[in-house]
């Protein structure tokens, strides 16, 4: 496979780029694999990549119902951060954060990871308390995060309005400087190309229709729209469709799937230097390298697989953005789209073994899965290869919903009094 570099680009330009080959093959499925991954999104492809690279498991297929990277990987607002509160989450997301730093070089694919900083605005006394708690917890864990006064926040993000007389004045912010954004498609493509290089078969347009099990209950393979494919182990990384796939194996999941919307503006010259999130007014905003303002909206309240959320979700977010950044009121929404996110009761993922031997699941990332992509794939590959969880994902079991050992980040921000 061709190694990407400026010189290679220049060399190929001499022949009008006629000599570039496929970034990944288009293989037919083999009768059997050591591992079948269901879902060729970022997490599934990363899992396959690390299975091959770190564990020498190369007889792997990644099955994708549609086109690779076409699910939530290609539909999110690309925010990467790791300043979570609970130790378990810090461990998981900061592991991913470490991998992000060198991911372009690792994959020889420029995923355009941009460490421009993610700033979370505090608008109430309660917000201040919650964010400072994060900052302290993160410092102890060695996770970068710092508290900024309103004036410091404004200096970091000049468009910010820190006047005191606005409806939700900015009282300060938590900033993670090495957090940022990445180019979402490139992450999927980079992992796909990397996995393909190790011999992993990425099979697109191949829908899983059933999970077959041995008499002893363990997994024997998957039924697909392209026939039966045998597998010693199966990893389900199907995001919003996890419940549907796990149902094929008779495993009920603590998941609900909701449409999640995002939107971009028309492209403009650089005007917004970082990522800003505000939970109080429900908005987050950054500017892509193409110049579009990228805005994350909320989820619809109901279970749906429709990928089209309600207009009221979008307008609610846009009014919040306009309130925080009134100069953007004249900007215009160019595209609005939806994905389907799978949400657990504690809004933390489930990564690990299932009651079915040989069946593994990685799901429940809710609205925040993109940032974890490298870390998620890395620890899930470990879990599949070793048949036991990596210490980092050990707490993220399905069993925690029985024992009550929840990892609830949202609860930590509970508002009352």
């Amino acid at each position: 496979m061709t190694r990407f570099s400026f010189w290679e680009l220049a060399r190929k330009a001499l022949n009008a780029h006629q000599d570039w080959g496929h970034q990944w093959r288009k293989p037919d499925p083999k009768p059997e694999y050591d591992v079948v991954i269901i879902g060729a999104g970022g997490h599934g492809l990363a899992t396959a990549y690390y299975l091959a690279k770190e564990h020498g498991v190369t007889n792997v297929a990644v099955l994708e119902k549609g086109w690779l990277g076409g699910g939530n990987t290609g539909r999110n607002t690309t925010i990467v951060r790791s300043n979570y509160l609970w130790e378990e989450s810090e461990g998981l997301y900061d592991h991913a954060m470490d991998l992000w730093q060198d991911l372009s070089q690792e994959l020889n694919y420029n995923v355009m990871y941009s460490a421009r900083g993610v700033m979370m605005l505090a608008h109430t006394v309660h917000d201040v308390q919650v964010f400072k708690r994060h900052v302290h917890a993160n410092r102890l864990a060695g996770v970068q995060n710092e508290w900024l006064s309103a004036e410091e926040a404004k200096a970091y993000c000049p468009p910010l309005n820190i006047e005191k007389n606005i409806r939700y004045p900015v009282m300060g912010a938590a900033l993670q400087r090495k957090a940022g954004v990445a180019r979402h498609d490139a992450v999927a493509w980079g992992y796909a190309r990397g996995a393909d290089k190790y011999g992993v078969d990425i099979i697109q347009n191949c829908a899983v229709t059933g999970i077959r099990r041995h008499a002893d209950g363990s997994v024997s393979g998957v039924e697909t729209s392209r026939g039966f494919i045998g597998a010693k182990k199966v990893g389900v990384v199907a995001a919003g469709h996890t419940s549907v796939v796990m149902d094929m194996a008779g495993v009920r999941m603590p998941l609900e799937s909701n449409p999640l919307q995002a939107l971009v503006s028309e492209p403009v010259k650089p005007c917004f230097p970082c990522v800003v999130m505000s939970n109080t007014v429900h908005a987050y905003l950054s500017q892509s390298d193409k110049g579009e303002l990228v805005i994350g909206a909320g989820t619809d309240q109901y279970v749906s697989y429709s990928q089209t959320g309600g207009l009221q979700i979008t307008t609610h977010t846009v009014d919040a953005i306009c309130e925080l950044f009134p100069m953007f009121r004249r900007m215009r929404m160019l595209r609005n789209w939806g994905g389907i996110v799978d949400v657990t009761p504690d809004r933390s993922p489930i990564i690990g073994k299932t009651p079915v031997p040989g069946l593994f699941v990685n799901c429940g990332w809710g609205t925040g899965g993109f940032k974890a992509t490298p870390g998620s794939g890395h620890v899930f590959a470990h879990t599949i290869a070793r048949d036991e969880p990596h210490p980092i994902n050990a707490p993220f079991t399905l069993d925690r919903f029985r024992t009550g050992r929840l990892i609830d980040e949202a609860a930590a921000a509970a508002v009352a009094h």
Partner: protein
Amino acid sequence: MLLISCPWCRVERPEIEFRYGGEAHIDRPAQPADLDDHQWAEFLYMRSNPKGLLAERWRHVHGCGRFFNAVRHTVSDRFVCVYKTGEKCPDLEALAREGAQ
């Protein structure tokens, strides 16, 4: 924005008047103490989350305030029927066979 028919008010109203209440017909056990941890977790957390027909709870919170149930297709978001709390769950498989989408 969905348009939802409230069986109590007998009118269709925009979704913003309603609050979603999750999967329907998950009755709280009469004697929770009799359940083991697995069974209790099943009640608390496990949901069918189907891609297809789902019986679900809604509350007309900014209308009559009443809860009711609905059957909705989770791909088309189309409502198949609504019925009052306490009424029996329609046969979802039969509805699916009839081609409800």
